[in-house]
């Protein structure tokens, strides 16, 4: 009786996993099929046509390394969007870590007046929806000339990212003992060396998680980029959205696969770090 129940339990887990993975299966079939008509469950012909049309793969008769390179260097929309997404993501991640580091240290290690209010202000963008601030901000950015600029988009990406990075790193510093730094300093290490040899190794694991998820938030940002980028800054989510609205399933699926590939990689690396009971993981709900 009990083993039967256990078996049912495990089958239910597998069924759940299968249901969860259905969209992924659909993505791959759509992206690698040609004329996948209803009611075929499995496509009759496999094809790389969608990838050729996205200009990620050259036409069938000239698939040499040089042709790949030439195609990619001809700067098709997808490569442009990919590069924009990557650059914005990297800039915003690095900037947010640098800005958050001193603040998190102070919030994690020291007690002072107004600390609760400051934390409350800092995390408010995680609760209130982006549409509440970006419409007003958009008009300000237009008058400041930041609308449609790369810098403006990076700046606005910092808003949803900042609270998460500050919160995660505050958690790290709450369990951090600054006495080691004093010891290093008395032993003659300068400020830079102390940071590099003592502080950084201690906070590195948490910082990696914060950075990975900061990148993810930027990577999947649609509304903020669309409004502040004013159609001039094309990123992957914008491209995916417009392709999906125009309704070509094969192209949409292929683009989506390009779009989600790094996110799955990040999950794979971060899953090692995101364990245990830390308040930081609530930031994941924002992704």
């Amino acid at each position, binding site marked *: 009786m009990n083993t039967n129940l256990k078996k049912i339990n495990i089958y239910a*887990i597998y069924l759940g996993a299968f249901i969860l*993975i259905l969209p992924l299966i659909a*993505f791959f079939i759509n992206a690698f099929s040609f004329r996948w008509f*209803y009611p075929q469950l499995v496509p009759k012909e496999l094809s790389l046509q969608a990838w050729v049309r996205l200009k990620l793969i050259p036409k069938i008769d000239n698939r040499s390394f040089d042709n790949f390179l030439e195609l990619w260097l001809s700067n098709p929309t997808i490569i442009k969007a990919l590069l924009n997404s990557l650059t914005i993501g990297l800039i915003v991640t690095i900037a947010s870590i640098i800005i958050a580091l001193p603040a998190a240290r102070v919030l994690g290690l020291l007690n002072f007046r107004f600390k609760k209010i400051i934390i409350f202000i800092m995390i408010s963008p995680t*609760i209130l929806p982006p*549409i509440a601030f970006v419409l*007003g901000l958009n008009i300000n950015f237009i008058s400041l000339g930041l609308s449609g600029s790369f810098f403006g988009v990076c*700046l606005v990406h910092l808003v949803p990212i900042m609270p998460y990075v500050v919160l995660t790193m505050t958690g790290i510093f709450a369990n951090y003992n600054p006495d080691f730094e004093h010891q290093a300093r008395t032993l003659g290490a300068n400020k830079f060396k102390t940071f590099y040899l003592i502080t950084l190794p201690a906070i590195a694991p948490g910082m990696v998680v914060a950075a990975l998820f900061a990148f993810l938030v930027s990577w999947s940002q649609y509304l903020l980029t669309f409004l502040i980028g004013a159609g001039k800054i094309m990123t992957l989510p914008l491209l995916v959205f417009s392709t999906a609205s125009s309704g070509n399933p094969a192209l949409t699926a292929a683009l989506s696969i390009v779009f989600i590939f790094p996110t799955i990689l990040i999950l794979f690396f971060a899953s090692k770090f995101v364990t245990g009971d830390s308040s930081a993981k609530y930031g994941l709900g924002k992704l």
Partner: protein
Amino acid sequence: MSGDRLKIILSLTSPLLIIITLFFGGIFYGLLQSLGYQPAIQKYDINFDAYYNVMFSERYAKLFWTGLGLNLWVSFVSTFLAAAFALFGALAIRKTFFAKTFCNFIYSLNLPMPHLVVAIGMIFVFSQSGLLARMSSQVGLIGSPSDFPILVKDKYGLGIILTYVWKESAFFFIILMSVLQSLGENFEELAQSLGANKWQRFRYVILPLIMPSLFSASIIVFAFSFGAYEVPALLGISYPQMLPVMAFEFFLNPDLNARSEGMALSIIIAMIVMILVIIYFWLIQSKIRKN
């Protein structure tokens, strides 16, 4: 001590500046515009016309109230279903079995996926010529695609709900797994030795212990799904329409007067989310006081 104070101020200035100028500044400016202050078209008087128009004018009232209804329905149902699904998953998976790591990975797979992609996935799976329709046709359940029920781009927001359930159940799952793991099995074993059956162990031991985390996660998911734009923009229809999409369309309207209405709507959305969060904290506080 004053050195400390200087250090505190210097360290906190830049992140606070970003949040205050961009986030609160944006909200403040949106609020001004929603009250009719639009220097761009020489309007400087403050009034509540935009709010009145959105909520009570003949033109928009129906769209607004059905939209609000849809918003509440979608957010409540998807939060509840995602939490329930994740709870079943987490309770089943936490005990060791041979494919545990793999299943763990699959159940958290949707966590880093952008909402946009999950929404597209729902189109591929649940549309009338989607994967599920094809499966049903293979086993002879349906004939033509039109026999399959309309599950995406429908008037009940089912596609939107499905997207959020898929996506947020991974978030709930991660939260629940880490809470369950930190609890261990001591409490349950104790309850079992005192004669509690499976249901009693769940109802009186596990559920109270995980409730605080489940609640905090729920409020985040609810707030998010209430104000998010992409998913209803992709999977919604023009009537009834969820409020964030409506606000955005007002805003993009070439008629600059409609801008105030768009801003008013976005402020209304933010206010509703804020009120719900305040109620939530108030509930938690009163519960803490009672205990």
